[in-house]
């Protein structure tokens, strides 16, 4: 063996420190291991009642095929090769119930003021072409009138679930009421808003939380003049 001429405690300490650093990096950062293992193509509808008050958001989230295959396994209870809404009902309930913990991945601002939600309703799941879609209505605590501008963001701040608004024109719609609103959609990772002329309300709408996940946020602004 080669013997080092130096036996200084300093070198030993350095080696120890190096080793500790390596271990700390590889070991303790394990708290941060995660996978964006769920991909969701989202659609949402801003729901008004007949008085023109906003009552909630109707979500429609389509999951990626691998994840869909995973969660529906064993659920075709009558073995007819078709997953009916009845067979998927327990799963739909379970998944919407769990969403409160994640604040429904939804940030909603009306006239710049953040809103609270009531328990989701009318949840159901459909299965088509290998994809599961979860539909549910996310009601506001109580209907809000005098709507000028609605800001809607759909995202997971931890990026465990990767939300993307579908690339069609019906990604964000309005339903009910007779309000004629203009809808502007900004999709995840395409946050180029510099070209537009913006009101203060608009900025107010955008600065929801300064989490990194916001880079992946999908934003819609519904302006009802």
């Amino acid at each position, binding site marked *: 063996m080669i013997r080092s001429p130096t036996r200084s405690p300093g070198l030993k300490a350095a080696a120890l420190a190096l080793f500790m650093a390596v271990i700390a990096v590889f070991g303790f950062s394990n708290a*941060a291991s995660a996978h964006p293992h769920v991909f969701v193509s989202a659609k949402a509808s801003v729901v008004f009642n007949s008085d023109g008050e906003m009552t909630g958001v109707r979500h429609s989230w389509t999951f990626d095929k691998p994840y869909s295959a995973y*969660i529906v*396994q064993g659920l075709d209870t009558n073995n007819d090769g078709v997953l009916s809404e009845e067979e998927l009902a327990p799963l739909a309930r379970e998944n919407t119930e769990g969403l409160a913990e994640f604040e429904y991945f939804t940030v909603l601002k009306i006239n710049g003021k953040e809103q609270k939600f009531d328990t989701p309703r009318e949840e159901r799941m459909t299965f088509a072409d290998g994809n599961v879609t979860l539909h549910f209505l996310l009601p506001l605590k109580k209907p809000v009138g005098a709507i000028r501008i609605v800001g809607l963001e759909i995202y997971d701040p931890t990026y465990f679930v990767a939300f993307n608004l579908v690339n069609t024109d019906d990604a964000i719609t309005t339903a009910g009421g007779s309000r004629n609103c203009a809808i502007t959609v900004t999709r995840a990772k395409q946050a180029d808003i510099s070209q537009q002329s913006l009101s203060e309300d608009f900025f107010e709408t955008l600065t929801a939380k300064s989490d990194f996940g916001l880079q992946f946020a999908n934003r819609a602004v519904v302006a009802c003049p």
Partner: protein
Amino acid sequence: MSGILHSTTTRRQRVISRLIVAALAILLIAGICALIAWLLWPTPIRPPQKIPFGLAREAAAPTSGFGSLILNMQGQFYKALETSILALKENGTALWPLLDIGFAYGVFHAAGPGHGKGVISAYLVANERSLFKGLAVCLAAALLQAVVAVSLVSILAVMLRVTAATMNSLTNIIEIASFAIVTLLGLLMSWRKAGKLIAVVDVNRGIRPDPADLLCDHVHLPPPDEIDRIGKWRDLAGVVLAAGTRPCSGALIMLVFALSQGLFASGVLATLAMALGTAITTSIIAMLAVFAKNLALRLAGGRSSASAAIGIAVLELTAAAFVAVLGLSLMTGLWIEIGST
């Protein structure tokens, strides 16, 4: 008679001092790790969160820039795996691209943080100087992980046709078991290395070490080769279990997806390709660990100098205590999480 009494007292004292040394080492390492964690993430880390949509549990995602990059790339690999499974369904000969992506996913995925690499590298620093054994452990742990995933899906999904909820709860039980193995391994290693440290210090002070302290580890006399070898392989098996028992939820999802497309056999092959990729990355880390240990030994100037021997014993105890702290922190994380649900 008095001699026997005397020796049992000494024996008990030795056990106690060994326990104290091991406990102190674990506390110290826990403190250092907490400090490092606090320096890296000054704001308290959120306890592992519940995961939406009833997936198998995983720790919370990082919210730093680098973490987001890794997540983004993992997402792309996941998408690529999905695409290649669908492509294979279209065209039965497109197996190679699937294996290719599975392999790359394994290499990349293992580069992210995970407890398996921590366990393996700390064990290697504490006990091993043989690169070959280090690499063998990495390969075995990665293959074990693949075998666990394939067995789970074969039995639960193919044979029993259980629901995702059942599969998740079984995965969680396996996870708890694997964290318990890590903790046990760490405690056992700490106990041995505490004994070794005490013996080395005794030798240094001119006291003849108690053979009991040496039983599980060699200090300066090479123990009978045969016993040592059996013990080593048994230890290595423990490390493989600690590092590789918990299946990756990504592999489970892809296997179930392949099954749903009628391509289970290809899914199994892709999982094995993933394991090979994982083994390559963990091997690089294991090589670093073995290199670090040899460097430390070299800096300490071999085993002739008494203080150098103590330095090495301290280093080994540190690594052993780290495994214990890692196991305990994983268990605590689980405990917090279960408590919060």
